[in-house]
């Protein structure tokens, strides 16, 4: 096994995770999947990539679960007659999670496999690992929920955080909200949870709304994208692609943990989504790319929901494994496999791995509305999930902001030399990408991408985009030590013409040299800014305060004072995202030539009282 190799974490005891004959979660899905892997030539029975795994220990389970709950599971696991009161108290009283004999061992085998996979990646035994029996994202610290007894994901992530203090990006593709994992790390800024799922309006667990964003230090580290019922591949993939790369860029994880529940498939009986295996394959591919871009390839993939036991699950997870194992996507489902399993299926088993949505999904009259609903939510998620600069650097097709070409700043780029305590610096606005590319970057420039080399790439990218204005400060030696960017606003601000978002960054070693003041003065002294509204959105979780010696509140005060000198005022707002933390702040500078009606549109956007109806 090598660092870019793959591991497959499995334990035959996982097949004993079985709530009974009439239950939707049928272990046959895993048997058929393993069989398909073999028939497709992707994993042999004696394959060296298979990890030996054991049952999770009590200590490991208690990383997430309460001792009393583990006691109860063990007691009920002894078999009938069941203590009904005990069963009900811990979530085993309903048809969702009926107690069964041996359930502790079966559930602990799942956790053990996911843990083994996580550790294999953490220890560098392999780059990527797949634990297909895992992904039980609903289990709570002291209750079984939604077919999940122990939360293998939360245990694996907790273990990674304990052993390494790694930053973990958790990505949940299941049709249902990843509530158990979100709850386990809701206040922890080192675990960023992102779940895309069918809205809780008509679907379990009824959570995962946009405004669930984390609490305390974890505020801004839970991100939810609830899509509408009947969402199809294109809209779902668009949402994933519009959010996930920017989120990874902002967070710069050390490892990605992804849950590949496939119950959003059009054939799945438990959700109202209309996805296909093509969307699932694209999702796995994107996570894979991001793992290589940001985490030296460290990636732990898990299974999850999936209740079309033979028609969907085996194909969906074979595609995940192909991605994990760097194999080309398989195309045709081997005939011997179909022959063997067809007898257990009610519908003909599909012959291809990748579905064609046109064949699989019947036409959906509401589709255009659904696409619009999802785009509206994506725009909101992007607004609070990552800063404007990253939104500009990671554009998406849903961004159909009306263009205002006539207000594009005049293409004349200005320069100025300023003297600071650290020496002279040159300021340059409308900086062309060739100049930005030729310059070097100060190692202290890392506010947006957390790494100077990536920050440099980001600035080159921004400089080349239409309708953005990048102002840089560089030394005579050709090193970038600060920047101010003006980028097109999107989301809530898109309908306001002439509105740009402003971001400022000063290299760590150049703080307290008044370079920030020089830059802002320079930027706001251009005549064209009098035609615009400039907005600076300060979300605590976008700031990189490491090494600044400031806490979020001091930083907010500093920012407000600095901007106030150049005509920016703190704007009152009832925006729940801004109000979510008292250190968040919204600053705006309204140019002297901004027409009154434009100002009014802007002002109305500051207040959006939620309509509430029963």
């Amino acid at each position, binding site marked *: 096994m090598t660092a870019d190799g793959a591991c497959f974490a499995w334990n035959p005891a996982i097949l004993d995770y079985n709530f009974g004959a009439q239950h939707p979660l049928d272990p046959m899905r895993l048997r058929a999947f393993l069989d398909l892997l073999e028939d497709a030539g992707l994993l042999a029975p004696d394959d060296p990539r298979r990890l030996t795994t054991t049952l999770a220990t009590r200590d490991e389970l208690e990383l997430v679960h309460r001792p009393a709950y583990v006691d109860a599971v063990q007691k009920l696991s002894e078999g009938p007659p069941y203590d009904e009161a005990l069963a009900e108290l811990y979530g085993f009283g*309903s*048809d*969702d999670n009926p107690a069964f004999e041996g359930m502790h061992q079966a559930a602990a085998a799942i956790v053990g496999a996911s843990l083994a996979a996580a550790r294999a990646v953490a220890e560098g035994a392999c780059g990527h690992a797949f634990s297909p029996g895992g992904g039980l994202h609903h289990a709570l610290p002291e209750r079984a*929920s939604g*077919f999940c007894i122990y939360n293998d994901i939360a245990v694996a992530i907790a273990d990674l955080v304990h052993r390494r203090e790694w930053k973990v990006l958790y990505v949940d593709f299941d049709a249902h909200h990843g509530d158990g994992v979100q709850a386990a790390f809701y206040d922890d800024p080192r675990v960023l949870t992102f779940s895309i799922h069918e809205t809780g309006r008509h679907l*379990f*667990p009824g959570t995962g709304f946009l405004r669930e964003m984390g609490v305390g230090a974890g505020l801004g580290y839970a991100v939810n994208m609830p899509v509408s*019922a009947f969402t199809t591949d294109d809209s779902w993939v668009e949402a994933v692609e519009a959010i996930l790369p920017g989120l990874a860029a902002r967070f710069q994880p050390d490892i990605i943990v992804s849950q590949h529940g496939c119950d959003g498939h059009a054939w799945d009986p438990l959700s109202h989504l209309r996805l296909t295996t093509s969307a699932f394959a694209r999702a796995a591919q994107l996570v894979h790319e991001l793992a290589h871009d940001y985490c030296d390839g460290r990636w732990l993939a898990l299974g999850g929901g999936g209740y079309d036991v033979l028609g969907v699950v085996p194909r969906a997870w074979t595609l995940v494994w192909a991605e994990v194992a760097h194999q080309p996507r398989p195309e045709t489902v081997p005939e011997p496999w179909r022959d063997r399993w067809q007898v257990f299926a009610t519908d003909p088993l599909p012959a291809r791995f990748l579905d064609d949505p046109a064949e699989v999904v019947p036409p959906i009259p*509401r589709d255009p509305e659904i696409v619009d609903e999802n785009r509206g939510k994506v725009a909101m998620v992007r607004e609070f999930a990552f800063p404007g600069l990253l939104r500009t650097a990671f554009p998406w097709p849903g961004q159909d902001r009306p263009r205002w070409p006539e207000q594009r700043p005049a293409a004349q780029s200005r320069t100025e030399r300023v003297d600071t305590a650290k020496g002279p610096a040159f300021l340059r606005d409308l900086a062309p990408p060739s100049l930005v590319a030729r310059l070097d970057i100060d190692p202290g420039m890392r506010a947006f991408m957390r790494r100077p080399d990536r920050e440099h790439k980001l600035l080159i990218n921004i400089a080349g985009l239409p309708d953005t204005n990048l102002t840089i400060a560089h030394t005579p030696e050709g090193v970038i030590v600060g920047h101010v960017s003006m980028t097109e606003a999107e989301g809530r601000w898109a309908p306001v013409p002439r509105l740009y978002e402003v971001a400022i960054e000063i290299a760590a070693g150049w703080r307290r040299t008044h370079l920030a003041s020089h830059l802002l003065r320079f930027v706001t002294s251009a005549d064209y800014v009098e035609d615009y509204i400039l907005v600076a959105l300060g979300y605590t979780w976008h700031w990189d305060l490491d090494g600044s010696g400031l806490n979020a509140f001091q930083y907010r005060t500093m920012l407000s004072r600095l901007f106030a000198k150049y005509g920016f005022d703190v704007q009152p707002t009832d925006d729940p995202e801004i109000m979510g933390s008292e250190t968040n702040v919204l600053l705006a500078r309204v140019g002297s030539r901004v027409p009154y009606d434009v100002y009014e549109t802007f002002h109305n956007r500051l207040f959006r009282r939620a309509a509430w109806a*029963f």
Partner: protein
Amino acid sequence: MLVRDIMTRKVVTVTPDTQLEEARRLMRRGRFRHLPVLEAERVVAVLTDRDIARVLGDAVDGAAGEPRRPVREAMSGPVVTVTVFDPIEDAARIMEERDIGCLPVIEDGKLAGIVTESDLFHVLVWLMGLTEPGTRLELRVGRLTDVLPRVVDVLCTSRAPLHSFLVGPARPTEPRRILLRVGTIHPAPLIAALRQVPGVEVVEPLPAA
């Protein structure tokens, strides 16, 4: 449920002579937006963050050199209060009608706590079963008295935990609605059973508008 069941008991208060900067600091430290103003143990006003912003502005925190201003200059009275024994719905109605976000709660003539919008939202979230993972079901029903016994019968026969069961008053132009939250990820069998009840329509998402 009474106001005393949901009110916040630990209340930070100020007097009319407290400096506004101090009041703002108290609000920020305690993460709240309302401060009852007490004069000789009597509640004379509720100071809000907006009152403070109106007088001090929000541009710069604690600007030096500004003359110090007392709470008296920002507060507006008279104050509306409730007692610990008022039902929560009365408190909600007062807050809605007067468009205010917070009510001081009085017991034996003295301040016993406050009840705020967020206290009421908290109750609403709990009443609707949102603190439990579950599936939301909406039923459109005919005559409530006809369908209610059968609906309840179906719910009791099902083993899905019932987190919430809400019925609002009738509206002349709309069918009656029942809002349920049931603790199951697999509501299909329950939905099928509810559909068997004459006069019950289960609202489900549809591919067509």
